């Protein structure tokens, strides 16, 4: 029986399942269980990856806690990672064994009308959804536990495992010389935030920006705004500690939404900015906050960008008079409007040329086996990114 330590040169591995360690989420809200699992070989258009390291993102926590669909158990969570190609299925020419890759939850098939259009980053061949399965084959999983039971996939990545199988549409080849604990951040959170500022909003030099929610996404928006030359980056959060943290990311002023007194946050911001910001970003996932953000983006050319994911069925309500008369724009953005295969390499270049700063996002590094500690840190708001290294 092959184990996770087989070398890549060993062709026998390529066609066989691999037995390796994974952190399996078996019950909502309960500690992940480190266990041995079986990872099937890649099907046509798939790539089996040996994970080097993976970081914990809030979306992992959301679907770990959730007790209703689209949460499902037992599942292998994790979607922000970096790895090396162990083997490829038929029809895969984009990457070969040994390539360093980032698996990405956002598909980039390169083939459909949307991937080909410069106006969209949402692949319509593999539309974004929280599915338990591999994207290309119906009801198909590559994971089983040692009892032969199916383990569900997560966001097309499932990186809380020493090995995973990912569709080629969800794989981006990158420069192998990049530090893994930094590069892995670009497969989700940092790209989402930086992209939102850079690609979705196209923040201009000298702009005033407001960011609602200074979690990793909000901080990445701040970093992106800094790169775009924003002159003021106002951070809004309920946690006063976030200001000090935020300053490292370019946040110039802070509004604690709990201590605005009789005023609404939007009133405070409209006063601070003399009529509203050029760009407002909502990075929490609350429709009410999106409305608040809309109320303090500037009349005439203000743009409000929503990045946070709210509960299914939630609605953003805008006053029709306001929409017609005040010239504001509301834009929704997934993965920062970025096309994974085009933009991730560009972001990596900007990191390597010391423009984009990634080090400050990594506040903790642990071993894979310590994954439950990482969950605790994130739940307690004590980390930005905790990177977990595989053996």
């Amino acid at each position: 029986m092959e184990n996770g330590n087989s070398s890549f040169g060993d062709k026998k591995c390529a066609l066989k399942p691999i037995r390796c360690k994974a952190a399996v989420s078996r019950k909502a809200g309960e500690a992940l269980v480190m266990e041995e699992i079986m990872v099937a070989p890649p099907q046509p258009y798939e790539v089996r990856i040996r994970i080097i390291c993976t970081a914990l993102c809030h979306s992992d926590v959301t679907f770990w806690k959730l007790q209703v669909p689209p949460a499902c158990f037992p599942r292998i969570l994790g979607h922000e990672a970096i790895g090396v190609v162990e083997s490829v299925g038929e029809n895969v020419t984009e990457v070969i064994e040994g390539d360093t890759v980032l698996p990405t939850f956002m598909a980039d098939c390169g083939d459909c009308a949307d991937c080909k259009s410069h106006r969209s980053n949402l692949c319509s061949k593999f539309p974004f959804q929280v599915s338990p399965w591999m994207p290309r084959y119906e009801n198909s999983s590559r994971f089983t536990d040692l009892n032969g039971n199916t383990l569900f996939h997560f966001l097309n990545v499932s990186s809380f495992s020493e090995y995973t199988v990912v569709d080629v549409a969800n794989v981006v080849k990158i420069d192998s010389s990049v530090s893994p604990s930094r590069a892995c951040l670009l497969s989700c959170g940092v790209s989402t935030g930086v992209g939102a500022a850079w690609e979705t909003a196209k923040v201009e030099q000298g702009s005033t920006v407001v960011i609602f929610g200074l979690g990793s996404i909000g901080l990445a928006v701040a970093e992106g705004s800094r790169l775009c030359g924003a002159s003021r980056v106002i951070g809004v959060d309920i946690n006063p500690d976030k200001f000090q943290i935020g300053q490292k990311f370019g946040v110039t002023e802070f509004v604690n939404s709990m201590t605005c007194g009789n005023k609404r946050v939007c009133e405070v911001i409209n006063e601070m900015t003399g009529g509203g910001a050029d760009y407002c970003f909502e990075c929490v996932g609350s429709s009410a906050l999106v409305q608040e953000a809309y109320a303090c983006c500037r009349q005439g050319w203000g743009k409000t960008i929503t990045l946070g994911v709210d509960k299914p069925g939630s609605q953003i309500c805008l006053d029709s008079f306001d929409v017609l008369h005040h010239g504001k724009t509301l834009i929704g953005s997934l993965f920062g409007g970025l096309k994974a295969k085009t933009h991730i390499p560009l972001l990596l270049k900007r990191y390597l040329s010391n423009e984009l700063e990634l080090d400050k996002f990594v506040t903790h590094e642990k071993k894979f086996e310590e994954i439950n500690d990482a969950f605790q840190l994130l739940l307690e708001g004590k980390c930005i990114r905790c990177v977990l290294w595989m053996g």
Partner: protein
Amino acid sequence: MNKTTSFSINKGKPIRCKAAVCRKAGEPFVMEEVQVDPPEAYEVRIKILCTSLCHTDVTFWKIDSGPLARFPRILGHEAVGVVESIGENVDGFKQGDIVLPVFHPQCEECKDCKSSKSNWCSRFADDFLSNTRRYGMASRFKDSSGQDIHNLFYISSFSEYTVVDIAHLVKISPEIPVDKAALLSCGVATGLGAVWKVANVEEGSTVAIFGIGAVGLAVAEAARLRGAARIIGVDLNPDKFEIGKRFGITDFVNSALCKEKTISQVIREMTGGGVDYSFECIGLEPLMEEAFLSTRTGSGKTVILGMTKDILPIRLGSHDILRGRTVCGTLFGGLKPKLDIPIIVDRYLKKELNLDGFITHELGFEEINKAFDLLMEGKSIRCVLWMDR
């Protein structure tokens, strides 16, 4: 005696002339003699040559209560005129100039007017209900009993003469036929601008237009000129399809016949996922929501042009907006009147833009009630009222 000579007689004095005064919501207009005061500083008194009826006039004519209701009032805001006299501090306009009064202000001095990013005028755009820009509720119109008559959008073109602030006035070439020019003071320019400036529709795009009135037809014409591949018109009135075809509409959805499906479902099915751009040109919140849902995941953009009468919420599913959609509203199609109208006039004169077909009826000013009936019955697109007939 030519026009200019006759103008000199009234300079600095009030003018007595005819106007269609609205005294009660929704009631036929009665032509009255009114007094039009001379222009104050920064104002221009103009003789209206012709004025066309825009649906927003109908909307405001029907409002009987609430903050938007004003009586008595002179409606009308789509027109073309000749400068009769100017107040102090007026540069750029002189007696005899052909001008368009425009409801959307451009002071040319505020931060927004100086920026190319939008057509917002932060100095003036917030207030659309006073009677004058710089003198509050003072009115330049008085009826025969000396009572003030309220203004509409700083224009009030249902009068032989009116007084307009320079922020609302655009000088245009005398070469364009005046009735075509009047279309550019509101509806048609709005539709053109929404496509060219706000949405920036690209060749090969798919477009859905909710409401095939003058604004919707202008959107269609502008999209056609940009090379849009499909232009879907949505309306309750099946006659609008025939008219629409002349302006580039390729497909028609009769919203009354969609049965169990929503309009957006029908459009998404027709287009394999939704249109690149949708335009709401009516002013009804549920239709703005449908226009939003008609757009393609990942790239759909919705532009709202319709003037609403009640202020209701537009509800956008966060799931849908997150997936790469954009929503914005626009007044006057994002155009800066003084900059962009002359450019559009020029395109017309160079035969790059066709304004035929918008004017379906022409009547004399005194037949204004008939013009209202034609529009409300869905029988006209633009009815031009000539002052001198």
